[in-house]
């Protein structure tokens, strides 16, 4: 199974509620996957700022002096906000190129969850309500976000095996289903210069889209191409800095419901996830068609 939720706001007045709305949607999907949960929030880019989210198994030790250590290594100011096992590092965009390797050399055991101008990913093993509470997701604001609650099938139940997967700046993907050609595609993508953190099939789909977009495709084109190159069952919801996309495989046995109003576009594995959204009673509600790319942009 697995449960997916997504919310892409058109009305900026709803932005302060994004985290709360997404948390409610994700908690409703708990019985579709109780292993682990994660959420990606696009908090709105601030000019010249770069945001990295990192995760640690020993946050007290790892995060104690990280802010100062990273600032010294980069020779530039860093602002760190620790949230449970995760920390959000904010730095100047011109230091972004060296930040990843600096973090890796300062704290080799830290895992980098996401990096970009506006994306923050928080994910852990556990129930959605617990994971969301640990990271205070309901207090977060933003323009769009994606959540996932996992019932593991293809790889181990670990923090890094949880969704969303991020394989490029400001990009993320969540997946319900299982891919059958992920090993061969992973080898191909490694030859193309992509790197992988896990054995997870969904990470391959994320990396495939990142690779396509690095080659110049926009998100819509990258999703279109994946219909030819990805084999298996999938409902994907993907995010970019200003975009939000949905794709189902040609068989489309993994459930998906969408709703659109003047204020938002919402995705849920089930309609139940969306029942508390404002104006849902009069929203246009539909089931996305198989093999059809749905794509919104701010």
């Amino acid at each position: 199974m697995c449960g997916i939720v997504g919310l892409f706001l058109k009305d900026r007045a709803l932005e302060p509620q994004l985290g709360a709305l997404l948390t409610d949607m994700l908690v409703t999907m708990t019985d579709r996957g109780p292993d682990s949960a994660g959420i990606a929030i696009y908090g709105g880019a601030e000019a010249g700022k770069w945001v990295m989210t990192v995760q640690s198994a020993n946050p007290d030790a790892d995060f104690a002096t990280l802010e100062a250590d990273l600032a010294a290594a980069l020779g530039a100011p860093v602002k760190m906000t620790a949230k449970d096992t995760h920390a959000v590092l904010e730095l100047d965009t011109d230091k972004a190129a060296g930040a990843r390797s600096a973090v890796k050399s300062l704290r080799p055991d830290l895992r980098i969850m996401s990096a970009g101008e506006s994306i923050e990913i928080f994910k852990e093993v556990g129930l959605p309500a617990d994971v969301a509470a640990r990271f205070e997701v309901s207090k977060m604001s933003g323009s769009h976000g994606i959540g996932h609650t996992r019932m593991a099938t293809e790889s181990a139940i670990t923090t890094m095996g949880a969704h969303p997967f991020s394989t490029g700046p400001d990009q993320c993907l969540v997946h319900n289903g299982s891919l059958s050609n992920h090993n061969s595609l992973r080898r191909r993508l490694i030859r193309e210069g992509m790197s992988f953190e896990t054995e997870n099939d969904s990470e391959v789909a994320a990396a495939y889209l990142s690779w396509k977009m690095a080659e110049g495709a926009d998100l819509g084109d990258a999703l279109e191409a994946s219909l030819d190159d990805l084999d298996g069952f999938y409902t994907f919801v993907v995010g970019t800095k200003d975009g939000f996309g949905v794709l189902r495989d040609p068989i489309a046995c993994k459930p998906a419901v969408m709703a659109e109003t003047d204020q938002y576009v919402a995705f849920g594995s089930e309609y139940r996830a969306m029942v508390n959204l404002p104006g849902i009673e009069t929203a246009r509600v539909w089931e996305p068609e198989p093999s059809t790319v749905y794509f919104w942009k701010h």
Partner: protein
Amino acid sequence: MQTFDLEADGLRALNSTLHAQKEHTNATAWEIINPKGSHALAVGVDAPLDITVRGSTGYYCAGMNKLATIRIKGNAGPGVAENMMSGSVIIDGDASQYAGATGRGGTLVIKGNAASRCGISMKGIDIIVHGNIGHMSAFMAQSGNLVVCGDAGDALGDSLYEARLFVRGSVKSLGADCVEKEMRPEHIEILRDLLARGECDADPSEFRRYGSARNLYNFNVDNASAY
């Protein structure tokens, strides 16, 4: 009219209350409020009740229905009216995957569109869809009727047995062993009755009929190498 608030009293209480109604109950009219996409609403009803669900439903609403008329004033999730035995289920909106799957009797009316696998393995149910249906509909359908006022997706009627399929719009592709068949006067009459029961005013003469070519009924030794 008995009103049941699902949010206040819960699913188990709803279904056991409905199951407790016997053939001669006086409480025949029921309304379910606050369904909010919940699963397994009004499953296994076995009495001539008239049940209205005020909103959209999740998985398996009205499954195994016998005798009851169940109206959904919204959209229905996957597996609505699965294995229905008799009675009728009427959906004002769209239905998700495998609506009416394995149904043995009764009438399923979908006033919007149905997604993939509508009527898969149907065994006597009549399904009337006012809109379109998705791919692999009526897969291995054994008997009963599927009426589609809009278009049908890929692989309609794959490995079909003796169900009748009537489609007014286009058919994206036919599945293995499904062929178009002549629309004779008796089929027009059958279809006229189905449309009336389906609360649909479409003209029966605008439909095409599809059925089994019956080539898959017996094993053909020439295909042995294909397995």
